[in-house]
């Protein structure tokens, strides 16, 4: 029994929990973070699963991290270093390839090898997406309004949203309306003709979502992944030194320096609620901690269906949380390699492309078939992969001369028929390696160790319900003022003094820090 009383307790030390704690502490609150694992970071983590090799067992790249968070928490001072990821390499089985270079003209030249017309359209496409992304970006930093409410706050936010939208150019406004409601595949068909170009561009529309590139709604996800910038460089993806875990360590360090207390190995079993007011938490080991403000970084299902006694919640709300869609298609594979994979289609002299993203996404149809295979409870026979060799960017990630390869893989259903088990894990890992080996035949000979995180493992390891990387699907009915529940999208909950700050809230998943930051704003509105 611990009698110490905090101003705020944050359940979960994922990057959003840490950001939230840091902002609360910055406002003068005394904050305790309770993390169930042995380390903070949640899905923003690097782990040495195999001695000497630092695996990215969950997230791997940073792009959408709000620059406000980086600046306001002085993350650079706390060790955050982001190295831009400069290229994308799309190997093809016919011996050809497509590449996106840091140099604009080089990229255009590359694309024109596939289609002169696409090379022309590419500039306009990039400019258009940039304008749209910039236009919607301010919405990320808003506490979503409740459109049914007429409080001054809600009205003011709604006016802001309206202002943002009506400030758009007319053609952009219409394009945004269409993009939000159409499929990434249809959208790209409008712009381009080259099959591999459309394939690789479509991947941004399906990352983390259980939809195919032809499913309406993926247009929004495409845009979601265009919103990022690193130090003002638009649409740049970066690799944090030490992996994404390096970022979590920087946020944790910033939080600690602001006075946040972080306890790891402290799984919370229950939120203590008295007369509709949250007053503290009870750990699995029985310890109790009390505070005026309780914040949950766990996903909405875990938070409200596991950590809170349902008698404290209205039926409608429980129903909203139960129906919140969270089926996940994503896996993560890490390989410890004795050397570099040799891609058949990579020309001599262009090895620098291995330092960027390597995408197995030869066409929209390839991705769509991968989805078709998985959507009824299966996995892709030929999965989509977004691979990276972090040890080429940060030599500290693997022993000298050796490498690690991180692969984000879709689709493998969290609702696998018959459920996941060790055999099925091994089977799917083979599917992934076999698929990649078609492009890089030496792969199997250089594998020292292999590791897969299926949705099942992501759930067990990180407490992500169904292993969902975004704490719930980014489908249209689960965005903005509907996320995670229509009346409770403003980080508050039906329980007084109890808040949410994880990715189940606006603006959703990815390493953004936005839910954590926005939640802190909402909390500080209530309790300055």
């Amino acid at each position, binding site marked *: 029994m611990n009698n110490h009383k905090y101003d705020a307790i944050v359940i979960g030390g994922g990057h959003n929990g840490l950001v939230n704690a840091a902002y609360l502490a910055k406002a003068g609150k005394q904050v305790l973070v309770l993390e169930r694992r042995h380390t903070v970071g949640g899905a923003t983590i690097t782990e040495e699963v195999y001695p000497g090799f630092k695996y990215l067992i969950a997230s791997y790249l940073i792009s959408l991290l709000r620059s406000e968070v980086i600046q306001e928490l002085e993350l650079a001072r706390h060790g955050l270093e982001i190295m831009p990821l400069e290229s994308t390499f799309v190997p093809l089985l016919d011996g050809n390839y497509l590449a996106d270079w840091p140099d604009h003209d080089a990229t255009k030249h590359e694309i024109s090898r596939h289609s002169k017309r696409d090379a022309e359209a590419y500039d306009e496409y990039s400019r258009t997406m940039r304008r749209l992304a910039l236009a919607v970006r301010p919405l990320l930093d808003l506490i979503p309004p409740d459109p049914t409410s007429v409080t001054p706050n809600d009205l003011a936010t709604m006016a802001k949203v309206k202002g943002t939208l009506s400030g758009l150019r007319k053609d952009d406004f219409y394009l945004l309306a269409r993009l939000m409601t159409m499929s990434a595949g249809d959208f790209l068909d409008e712009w381009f003709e080259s099959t591999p170009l459309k394939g690789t561009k479509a991947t941004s529309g399906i990352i983390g979502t259980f939809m195919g590139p032809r499913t309406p709604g993926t247009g929004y996800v495409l845009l979601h992944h265009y919103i990022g910038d690193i130090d003002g460089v638009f649409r740049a993806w970066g690799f944090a030194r030490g992996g994404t875990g390096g970022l979590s360590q920087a946020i944790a360090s910033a939080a600690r320096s602001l006075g946040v207390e972080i306890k790891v190995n402290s799984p919370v079993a229950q939120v203590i609620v008295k007369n509709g007011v949250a007053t503290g938490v009870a750990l699995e080991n029985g310890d109790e901690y009390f505070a005026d403000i309780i914040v949950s970084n766990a996903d909405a299902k875990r938070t409200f269906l596991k950590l809170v006694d349902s008698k404290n919640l209205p039926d409608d709300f429980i129903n909203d949380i139960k129906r919140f869609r969270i089926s996940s298609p994503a896996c993560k594979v890490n390989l410890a390699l004795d050397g570099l994979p040799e891609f058949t289609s990579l020309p001599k002299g262009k090895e620098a492309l291995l330092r960027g993203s390597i995408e197995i996404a030869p066409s929209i149809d390839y991705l769509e078939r991968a989805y078709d295979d998985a959507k*009824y409870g299966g996995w892709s026979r030929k999965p989509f992969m977004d691979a990276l060799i972090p040890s080429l960017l940060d030599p500290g990630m693997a022993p000298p001369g050796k490498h690690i390869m991180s692969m984000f893989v879709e689709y493998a259903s969290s609702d696998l028929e018959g459920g996941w088990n060790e055999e099925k894990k091994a089977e799917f890992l083979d599917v992934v390696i076999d698929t990649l080996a078609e492009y890089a035949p030496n792969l199997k000979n250089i594998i020292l160790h292999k590791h897969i995180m299926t949705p099942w493992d992501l759930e067990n390891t990180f407490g992500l319900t169904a292993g969902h990387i975004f704490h719930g699907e980014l*489908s249209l009915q689960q965005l903005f003022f509907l996320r995670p529940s229509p009346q409770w999208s403003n980080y508050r909950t039906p329980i007084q003094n109890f808040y949410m700050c994880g990715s189940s809230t606006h603006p959703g998943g990815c390493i953004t820090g936005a839910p954590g930051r926005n939640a802190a704003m909402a909390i500080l509105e209530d309790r300055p």
Partner: protein
Amino acid sequence: MTTIYDAIIIGSSPNALTLAAYLSKAKERVLVIEPSKYLGGIASTTSFAEGFQADLGLMSGQLNSKIINELSLSDYGLEVIERNSITSLLANQKSFTLSSDPKEAVNVIQSFAPRDAERYQKFLELLNLAKELLESAYLITPLQAHNPSVVEREQLATLLGQLHAYGRREMPEVIRLLVMSSRDLLDEWFENTELKGLLASLSVRALTQGTFASGTTFNLLHHLAIGDGYFRTTAKGGIGAICQALAKAAKSFGAEILTDTKVSSIDINDSTATGVKLENGEIIKATKVISDYDARYSFTKLVSPIDLEPEFNREVKHIRYKGSVARVNLALSDLPSFTGLNQEALKGTLVISPSVAYIEKAFDRAKYGQMSSQPFIEACIPSLSDPTLAPSGKHVMSIWLQYVPYKGNISQEQVENLAITKLSEFAPNLKSLVLQSQVLTPQDFEAEFNLSEGHLYGGEMMLSQAFFLRPLAGFAQYQTPIEKLYLCGAATHPGGGISGLAGRNLANKLSFN
């Protein structure tokens, strides 16, 4: 001096004829020109075998009641027939029939899914709220969403007021409905696979999407809002009779109607439409021209792209058509016997949609240009309620089959065989009763009726092509880049079906000007 019409309308869909009736009622000189022999285009009922009549394209629907009343269409012979039930055809004698009377439907559901039965009525109530909202939106010209005028702002405020009045719980629920997939919707409400399958069927009608796609619930609501929902309606004499009644009304107000007359192009001078040119070279002049055709046909065939801006042409090219509905009409020597179904059920609509995944799987093949051997089918035997359609003792069966992708080059024979084989699983004697048949694939619809990619609704009814985006952003108010040229067909708001509302909205707009 040759006549100059106030309006020439190219095409004779219910929208076109509604417009013709309203304009001529307002004393305008109106000429309707229909290229085919049949009034109504795909909304016609024709004889396909000696003594047998069947609907060509759409096999149900009704005009908006405002139009029926304002034009007194019952005086012109319009008689509505309701099909008051839907039957899910299922293997192993498990077929079930839902009546349009919710209490009866609940009783039926009770027998195989008691928990779902409790929720059914509430489900219908929620759908109804969304439907009423759409009905209001469908009665007006879409607003220019980007920069609405004062009047439009007021209209928007009225719609939002209606939404607000639903209450704090229901308002966001209705918003969610508009954007979600029918799979998600039905998973939220029900447990029983077969019930969900049947209820999902409406969400993909005439749409080349599967049940897993966002926006399929919108397609479902659209059909409810145009009065062509689960429980279909038609007219005595078939869908074509609706056009006949409208045509009679229009003529009585003075409109002229020409069939079997092909327009080869719209005459344009100085970016202004001045009339039409017929295939025989004749030019007919008018102060305004209205095309009932879809945007692609109108702006590539009737108007030359040279008369339009490249950006506009590009957008026209991007409209999603992808027709995938095929129609089969069978002339039958007798009533087929469906295992376990009584005659009452046969008067309704028969649906093959045993699960939400079944439809998605049928669609999966279509994405790659193939036709699934397990199609989504809706069928009816209209001659049971309307004996005028077949010789006595004989029957007509009308079948709607998805997905037959336009790009797939699938033959009439393949479609007919599949339809009969699939339905024979439930009515084993069907094949032996077939006297004659008629099949229309998306390619036939394009070839015979100029529907782009054979799409029955003038473009997919999806959110990215609805309201202020239909048929094109910036041109959603029935106007076009050509002065005095308008669109009025299913390609325009509120989209597919035979509600006639596009015609009425445009008539309002033109008489207001």
